[in-house]
Each structure stands twice: as C-alpha cells, then as structure tokens.
C-alpha cells in the first residue's frame, strides 16, 4: 500500500476500499486458526478456494481464511456474511455445497447447521446459537470480518481511525486521561488500572521510554490472546501506537511465543504493512510522531511472562525476575521506564478512543468494565474462545455458552487463572465476572483461562498437576519457590498415591505461607493459590485421601489396603 501521509488521506483510502467492494457480495469466513488446524482446516480452506474458481464465482463470493472464530468445539466453523449463517464441523467435502448455497442464495444446508444437543433443533443464525448468543464479541468478533493478512480489510472495518484521532484530535495528556477515566484494568492477570501504569511511565525520568506487548500467554488453558493477536494483529498494534503516543515512547517491543508460527507470520506481515503505509516508523500519518516496534521471542518457560523476567529476556539475558524493589514502569528494559500490558489490554485501547469512556464504562460492573476474553476449557461441552461483558455471571459462561458439563457429568468446580489461580465450587457459579469479587473468593480471573471441572476430577490431583507444571516453569532462583514447590509436589504425590500422612495438610500450609510472603516474584508468591483455594473449599477431599486412603472422585489410583 502507498504511504498514507495525512488523516485525510487515510479516510480517502478507506473510502476507496469500501467503494470497490460490493456491500451485497457474500463472504465465506473459514476459521483458519491453529486451534482448528489439527482438524484439517487447511484442506477446508483449499477446497473452498478451488470451488469458488470452479463455479466461476471469483469477485462475487469471497473466501477468507480468518483467525479464530471461537467455537473450537464445533470447528472448523464457517460463517457466511452478510446472511449471518453459521456452519459447524465443516469438512473439505462440504465446500461445493456451501459455495453453491451462498452464490445462489439457497436455503441453508440443514445438516451443517448447529444442532441443539438436547432437542436436535437446527440453528441457522450465528447469533442464535447459545454459544454465541450470550457473548459480547467486541474484540474477537472482528476475526470473522477480516483476513488477518490484509491491511485493507482492517481499514475497511474502521482500522487506524482511533490512531488518527489520537494523533490529530487529541493531546497525549487527553489520551491518557481517556484511558484513565475508562478504568481499563490490565487483562494479563493483576487487573491493575492501565491508565495509572501509563502515567507512571510517562512521568518517570528516562531518555527513552518503552511500551511492550506481553504476548507470552504461557499458562496452561489460556489461548485467547493468541486467538486475538493472530486473527487481528493490526488491532493490537494500533493500541500500542496510541499508548506510545500517550506515554511518550518512541520504541515498542512485542514479546511473544517462539512456538506460534502463524502468529509470528501474521504479526511480522502486519508490521511490514504498517511501516509501508506510514502507520509505523517515522512521521506516522504525517503527524511528526516517530515510533517503531521490535518483535522478540520468549525462551520457552512460563516465568518469561513475569514483567521483570520478560524485560531481562528482551535485553538478551536469562529470564529471571530481578530482585530489586523498583517497578518496571519506572525502570524496566535497559533501566528505562517501560510500560507492559498484555495483548487484550492493548486491543481495548482503539475501541476506547473511538467509542469513548462512557461506552466502555457502561459495560460491566462498578470496578470491572468493558468485556473480557475467556478461554473456556476442561469439561465444558463447548470449549473455545469466549468474550463476554464483565459482570456476566459464571453460570451464563459455563451453562449457556459452555453448554454445561460434557458427557452427562456434574459440575464440581470452576477454576480461574491457571496454575496461579484458584477454584470455587460449582454451587457458587452465580458469581459475576469481576476482578475483585473473584479475587475475594480465591479464584482470581488471571488472564481469563476458565477451566470447568466435573465431579470425576479430584481436586488434590488438580492441585498436584498445577504444582508439577510450576516446578518445571519457575526459574528456580529463590528458595521458597524452588524448594517449596519441590516439597509440595512430594507431599501431593504421596497423598494422591495413598501414602499421605497426618500432618501433610499442615506442612502444605506452612510451605504455602512462606512461599506467598518470601518468594522473589509474583510467580512464587501466587503459586500456592490453587492449593489454598482447594483447601478452602475441598479440604474434605484431602482428608479422605490421607485418613481413609480414598479418592472420593475416583480419579487417583489408590490401591485398596
């Protein structure tokens, strides 16, 4: 694309793109995300492209290989627009029939529509399917409307309008105020107000300042950030550039996974496109603002996502959290003020700039606003990437969107926040999705990985799994975390195999107390949280293992004495 040198030019180009497109032309969006790759979506996309050619429909029907469409359970999903028909579990064999249906405006193909698992009734429209119906797919919904490799597509849906507004109609202070007033809270786990963090970096002394996207997403069960980032890389980039402007940063970093080739390809392409179009680099949109971005890989361990470890990794050092008592927003990469937010947090920024504080604050609860991405996994009937308004009850997420528990089992608990989160019992799922409410109950939202736990899952075994994960994924520098988890795992292994002894629970609690106070970084400090919540709500299960050598859930292999 040619270089865009002014906000007027941007709107001209946007207009030209839209005019060249027939608003009535149909598009077939096929989920081409890595999640569906294992289901053979590559062949499905190929089949559709071939079929459009064979039926001579090029220019009339557009086939788009899109980012994640969310409904992983029923993947690969195909969404037809503008008719809003959703086909599920589509195979390459179905391409001819669907293309013909779309081209000729025929009746939807019954057998490929979503069927209600209880009544068998077919549902035609995307927004009538229970999985999608209760969602507010503000950030992730655009995945179905764009080809992630196309800047034109992003411009066609209003892309970079927020950046243009931020650069030409707002001062950096006004951007900052807007984000502060919106009460956007960090989506990476802590829920810290993003605007306040930005302000700290903005006000901190330093020759250079940095803005960073944390795209590490290392916890098991979390896959929403990569779904958003892979499917809509320009959205995150736009948010980052706006943030840089507000903070006064001229350089940004994107820290992401080494093992997501599609994300990297889409990301690098988006950066190239943005540079070529003058949306990144020197004199962005002719505003005089200079900003560019470097992409870095992680080194493959979970602790790389911890802020100070991530910054050490960016500097080319071992990803070990630093022991200093100074915030990275004041002294981070190269000891310069560095503002780190995760993928989803940055993605919210263009929406807040475009739609305003009232729009954002109007969603959610008093102190948790906007929407939240959730990766729904575990024993839910419908696993996938979900986005709901904050304040939505977990019951809606688990029962309506998630379709309840699969295979006729019962809901036992829901676990939020992965290996540093916690579980609450199934009878507490009326709780709203709210940073503070969930935190109080001992199941902090974390980054939004929601694990549905059925009644055949043992809570001791689940805790054991998380602790085992962290013994491998911590850096191993400080004693409480390294040795605490090693011994915790020993004890939990014993309990699960029927070798538990009286006093084990007390010893676990003693280790947990020391870890949460004396560990060097937040990984060690919160690593005992799954254990704490399990002991808070499911202590009887631990006692049954230890005292009666029984696993009430029938999950652990304890041999009868």
């Amino acid at each position, binding site marked *: 694309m040619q270089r865009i040198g002014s906000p007027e030019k941007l709107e001209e180009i946007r207009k030209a793109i839209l005019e060249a497109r027939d608003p009535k032309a149909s598009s077939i969006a096929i989920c081409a995300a890595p999640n569906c790759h294992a289901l053979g979506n590559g062949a499905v996309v190929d089949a559709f492209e071939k079929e459009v050619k064979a039926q001579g429909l090029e220019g009339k029907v557009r086939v788009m290989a899109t980012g994640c469409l969310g409904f992983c359970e029923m993947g690969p999903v195909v969404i037809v627009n503008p008719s809003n028909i959703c086909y599920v579990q589509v195979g390459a064999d179905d391409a001819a029939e669907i293309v013909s249906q779309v081209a000729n405006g025929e009746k939807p193909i019954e057998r490929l529509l979503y069927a209600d698992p209880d009544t068998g009734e077919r549902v035609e429209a995307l927004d009538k399917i229970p999985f999608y119906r209760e969602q507010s797919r503000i950030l992730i919904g655009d995945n179905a409307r764009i080809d992630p490799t196309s800047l034109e597509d992003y411009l066609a849906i209003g892309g970079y309008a927020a950046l243009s507004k931020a650069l030409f109609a707002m001062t950096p202070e006004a951007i900052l105020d807007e984000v502060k007033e919106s009460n956007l809270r960090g989506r990476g786990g802590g829920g810290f107000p993003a605007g306040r963090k930005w302000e700290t970096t903005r006000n901190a002394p330093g020759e250079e300042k940095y803005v960073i996207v944390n795209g590490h997403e290392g916890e098991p069960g979390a896959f929403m950030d990569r779904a958003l980032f892979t499917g809509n890389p320009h959205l995150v980039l736009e948010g980052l550039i706006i943030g840089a402007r507000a903070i006064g940063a001229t350089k940004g970093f994107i820290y992401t996974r080494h093992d997501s080739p599609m994300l990297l390809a889409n990301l690098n392409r988006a950066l190239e496109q943005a540079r070529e179009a003058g949306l990144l680099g020197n004199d962005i949109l002719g505003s005089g603002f200079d900003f560019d971005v470097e992409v870095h890989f992680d080194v493959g*361990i979970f*602790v790389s996502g911890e802020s100070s470890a991530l910054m050490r990794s960016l500097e080319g050092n071992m990803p070990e959290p630093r*022991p*200093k*008592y100074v915030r990275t927003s004041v002294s981070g990469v190269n000891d310069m003020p560095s503002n780190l937010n995760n993928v989803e947090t940055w993605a919210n920024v263009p929406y807040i700039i475009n739609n305003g504080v009232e729009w954002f604050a109007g969603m959610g609860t008093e102190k948790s606003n906007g929407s939240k991405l959730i990766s729904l996994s575990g024993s839910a009937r419908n696993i996938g990437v979900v986005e709901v308004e904050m304040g939505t009850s977990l019951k809606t997420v688990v029962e309506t969107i998630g379709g309840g528990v699969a295979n006729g089992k019962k809901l036992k608990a829901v676990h939020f926040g992965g290996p540093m989160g916690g579980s609450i019992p199934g009878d507490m799922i009326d709780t709203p999705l709210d940073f503070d409410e969930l935190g109080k109950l001992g199941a902090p939202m974390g980054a939004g990985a929601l694990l549905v736990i059925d009644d055949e899952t043992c809570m001791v075994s689940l805790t054991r799994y998380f602790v085992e994960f*962290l*013994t*491998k*994924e*911590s*850096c*191993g*520098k*400080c*004693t*409480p975390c*390294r*040795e*605490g*988890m*090693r*011994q915790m*795992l*020993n004890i939990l292994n014993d309990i699960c195999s029927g070798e538990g002894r009286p006093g084990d629970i007390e*010893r676990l609690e*003693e*280790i947990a*107390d*020391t870890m949460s*106070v*004396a*560990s*060097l970084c937040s990984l060690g400090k919160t690593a005992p949280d799954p254990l704490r919540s399990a002991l808070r709500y499911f202590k009887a299960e631990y006692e049954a293992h230890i005292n009666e050598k029984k696993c009430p859930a029938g999950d652990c292999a304890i041999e009868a004495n």
Partner: protein
Amino acid sequence: MSEVRLTIDGKEVAATEGMTLLEAARTVGVEIPTLCHHDKLEPYGGCRVCTVEVEAWGRTKYVVGCVYPVEADIVVRTRSEKIDQIRKTILELMLAHAPDSHDLAEMAKEYKADPEKYRRESSFCIHCGLCVRYCDEIKGKNAVTFVDQGASREISFIPEIAAKECWDCKECFPLCPTSALQAAYVLARSFEDVG
C-alpha cells in the same frame, strides 16, 4: 549522599542513601542472617533468609534485607513470630539437601528448624549462587554456572573453561555454605562426564 533516618529493631539509625537494610542494620549492631549474601558481590536476593518486616505508611510488608534500600522513616523489624516462621521453613527446605551443613545447622538451632521435616534430596546444593557469582563477578571466568530451571536447576562447571581455570583457583570452594565438597563434587563430575 544524603542521610536517611529509619528505625531498626527499635534503634534509631542514620543510614546513607543507597544502603541496603542489611548494611544499615550492621551499623547499629543488628545482625540479619544471610546465606547467599557476600559483601564483595552484587545483592542477589535468592535464599530469602534475610526476609524482614518493613512498616511504611501504615502498611507492613516483607522484603529481603540484602536488596531493599533504606527509606526515610520506615520501621524495620528483623525478628517476629512470622519472620522466624519464614526462616524456619526456608531452613527446613534447605536442610532437606544439606542436613550436615555447619552453617545451616547453626541457624537451624536458632530458628528451631527440623532437619527431618521434608523429604531428603540427593543434591547438597542450596542454590545460593556464591560460586557462580564469585566466578563471574570477581574472577570474570564464568567457569561455573546455573543450568536448567525450576526444581531441576543446578550448578555446573563448563569443562572447557574449568580445565584451564579451576585447578589452580578453587576460590569458590570455601564460599559454599553447605560444604566445600559441593563445588568440588560437581567439578570432578563434570570431567567424568566428558571422560
């Protein structure tokens, strides 16, 4: 450097800006126990035995004395029921590796740590990093380093460097709090491995 006034264990301390709590405490004769600290090396904050209580602006927090810098008007307590419990647990976790270490045994007496509390582990190493950091920061050789991560983390000599540098140096051996044998054992083994 300006003066910073704070209280440590009820004593008024006039410290210098940039000092750590550990250094400030020593000026008034308050000893905070340490294992990974060495005056010649950069503060490490690894063993966490020097955890102390800091009261500032009405809030109490727990920090490590070897890293935390002095701040005006804070109240520091180096012993309390909670601190003693933390040190006890940390020592018990370390004693699982090195029950015979003289340094650990001395501290264990003070904090009533039970060497049998947790399951024995085969390595003596408590990961204080003194050998690794001394070789890096003082000798500039990096002959010994940490490898792996989490619970699998251990020290290892780099045979190519160690073959040239270590036999005439061995200055890291006496630094080891669990016994000089730990570094010696790992050094010898690293040559067995390469035959």
